[in-house]
């Protein structure tokens, strides 16, 4: 998957949870990524964040701290 496409998908998720009431948006974005993104997609996200996280919504970056990135 191209980095742009991945960033767009992650940002779409952030865009939804940003509109939700409450203060746990980052947690909910991370939960969504943990629940629906296969490990290698999360790995790709991790690599992208480490490389500066170009194009990622700030909420995605914030949520990333809570994303489980499987080693394998």
């Amino acid at each position, binding site marked *: *998957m191209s980095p742009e496409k991945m960033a767009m*998908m992650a940002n779409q998720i952030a865009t*939804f949870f940003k509109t*939700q009431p409450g203060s746990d948006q980052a947690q909910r974005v991370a939960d*969504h990524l943990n*629940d629906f993104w*296969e490990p290698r997609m999360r790995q790709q996200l991790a690599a992208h964040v480490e490389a500066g996280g170009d194009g990622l919504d700030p909420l995605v970056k914030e949520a990333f701290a809570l994303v489980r990135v499987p080693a394998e």
Partner: protein
Amino acid sequence: MKDFIIPWDTDADLGTPAREGKPVTLTIDGVEVTVPEHTSVMRAAMLAGLKIPKLCATDSVEAFGSCRLCVVEIEGRRGTPASCTTPVAPGMKVHTQSAKVKKIRKGVMELYISDHPLDCLTCAANGDCELQDMAGMVGLRDVRYESGQNHFDPTGTGALSKADADRRDGPGNFRYIAKDESNPYFTYDPSKCIVCSRCVRACEEVQGTFALTIEGRGFDSRVSAGAASDNFLSSDCVSCGACVQACPTATLQEKSIWELGTPERSVVTTCAYCGVGCSFKAELNGDDLVRMVPWKHGKANRGHSCVKGRFAYGYASHKDRILNPMIRDTIDEPWREVSWDEALSFAADRLKGIQQKHGRRSIGVITSSRCTNEETYLVQKLARGVFMNNNTDTCARVCHSPTGYGLGQTFGTSAGTQDFDSVEHTDVVIVIGANPTDGHPVFASRLKKRLRQGAKLIVIDPRRIDLVKSAHIRAAHHLPLRPGTNVAVVSGLAHVIVTEKLYDEAFIRERCDWDEFQEYAEFISDPRHSPEAIEDMTGVPAVEMRDAARLFAQGGNGAIYYGLGVTEHSQGSTTVMGIANLAMLTGNIGRQGVGVNPLRGQNNVQGSCDMGSFPHELPGYRHVKMPEVRKIFEDAWGVEIDPEPGLRIPNMLDAAVNGSFKGLYCQGEDILQSDPDTKHVAAGLAAMDCVIVHDLFLNETANYAHVFLPGSSFLEKNGTFTNAERRINMVRKVMAPKNGYEDWEVTQKLAQAMGADWNYGHPSEIMAEIAATTPSFANVTYEMLDEKGSVQWPCNDANPDGTPLMHVDGFVRGKGRFIVTEYVATEERTGPCFPLLLTTGRILSQYNVGAQTRRTENTAWHPEDILEIHASDAENRGVKDGDWIKLASRSGETTLRAQISDRMMPGVVYTTFHHPDTQANVITTDFSDWATNCPEYKVTAVQVLPSNGPTDWQEEYNAQAAKSRRILPAAE
């Protein structure tokens, strides 16, 4: 109430429709009978086992009282009333066999027969003709009208009695009307018509198309389809078969009966096309399928059908079917036919090799929404229990995955809330992003029946679909929204309901989370959601939107039916939540006539989702991360289950292009044609080392396959399908699999070749495993389904008879949740290069990628995909009706023919995706729903330009396809 229990397997025609009401007791021929009030005397008699002769009455339509064959005498009443039109009354004493009525009946019969050809022995309806039966029943022995006028074929074909031959007028009988054979599936032979008008009433009352009329008067009257110049094919007739079913004679008759004779045995089974899940009787001689007849006790269809299920089954015996397994090393080689063992060990070796080299998660499966629950269950089990990963997905990804997510979040369960019968109690219906008359025809007929009784309709769709305006149906409101603005429109409706205080506070307080409601109410009350504020963006007049919202909130029982026009968007899941909000706001959940009802595309979309096809959840919608759920399956299967979610179809293709996903077992799906952005799908498939296609035909995906495993049709297997109402219907084998194995056997063989110890002997054993592991199926067994006919899940100790209505006393998740639904415009926008919006859909006669229906006579109605375009858009581009045009988006381009259509608004064009030559999905993009990756099929920015032939891509594609389909003859 002393009631007659009708055993569910009696198919007898009781003459007039059932009624509900207080019990009434009367006496017929000395037998005491109790029936609901308003029941006809005829039906009461039939229920008591006393048959009254009849011709113009049949229990699928209201009585008409025209033939007078059914007359009876009633003590204390004068004359001889028709029993079909006379309602029962308490204490009534009826005589059905008095000398007087017998004489009348004989006279009536004699008159009918005087204008009916008597070539009975060579007639297609021989043995299945009510006119014959009635002549026998009334004891007709003589026809005294000698050479009167008649409508006979002057050439007199068939075996005629002498009397009959004498009555032919010789050449030039001006009353004779030739047989209409225009419909591919049935004929209309006016010379055999007794003008009982059963067909006309069936077309009106059952189907709701109003294609037929009785033309002419008295002796000259005949049935006519459409205008005088029309035949059945050119008329409005949609070939549903209701008239054929209703016709008592050979006048309207299946062509298959002409060809094959009357069937001797029948098996009740379930249609394998759409999510309505109609029950049919497959009627056969031996294993020769003669016809499919809708089963009157089918609870989804109540005796009705559409052209697909009723007639379009010929694909199952089409010459294109592949019956032998085939393999090849690379996709540029021709196919080699091999034995099952060789094909399976070839496949297993490759898959195992890939896993050794690229890891456990480098292969996966796609389950089929066309296969049975049992087959789907096995395919996901193959991924989880044999491949040891969660890389399983299904075509529901590309249609109703947002339904799963959205309804799961709001109500706590991923399914429609009602049964189809519920529509009979509804007062206001919203149809949004669905086109039921084409996509879900039998449901549409039931909906239209309710609309004709006075229920109101609100249509939310960019196109003016048929329901907006058709025979005796007018939508109260049509909100023609711009594609992609669903969330805005649904929120606009909610805004009106909340700000005008039209919501059902008592319901919300009792059933929903009140705090969440208040947050939601504050959000939705913001003026930015008002119909006036969004009018420009959505294209929906604010007044119309307000009126629609008021009608829905105040019009009584409100039901929402939606389809892929809701889900296949960037905000598909959000719209589903918005729909759930609307239902909760108005208190329209938990009883008859209301609810939220996703109309499922394929026959077993519901079932394939229920069976754990999604990569994040095990059967019964339970996330793989939950150890207690994994444990159930780990214990049952004796393996350890991966706790991480697997790849969804688009992710599989991305991973394939990246080189980390190398092998795929794809059962009964054609992702190359059905999934968006064809070029990307093709690139993903081409990058894999082992693609196994398990299908009836060499479909488009098979162009990239290394192993082809022949599949079996729904006529050749046992199992169950689950329809859009959560109804589990039996699929019964009516003939042996032409390819040798039912599909579940093939999956089992592949698992065995991979080393698994699977030993199912019958699908009922698979169902037993499903029931043991999945709480909503806990009490489902084949015995129960045989006995009850069908059952709606959840079916367990708490709901032993199943669950027709969900969320009756509370939501499955406890309190219903209002979720804030902010509109976010899709990234897919029009611009100077691509100024139009394309939306896609389907039509009645074709099904999905068309692999089945294109191999039937249904092509008579839809030989190619057509682009519908508004006149002004066409004119600006110099495009005329019928011209070839080029349709281009940023993904690709294709050519097809244009049709100027006033169903479209300017700026929006529409096409179907039934034909591989067009490949509408070359155009669609890889944008998808934020929550589920369900592709955004319904919005693509495009340009339309005149063209004179196929694009280079189409030519290349066809060349590749032709090359890829070569098959070497089997080695001797």
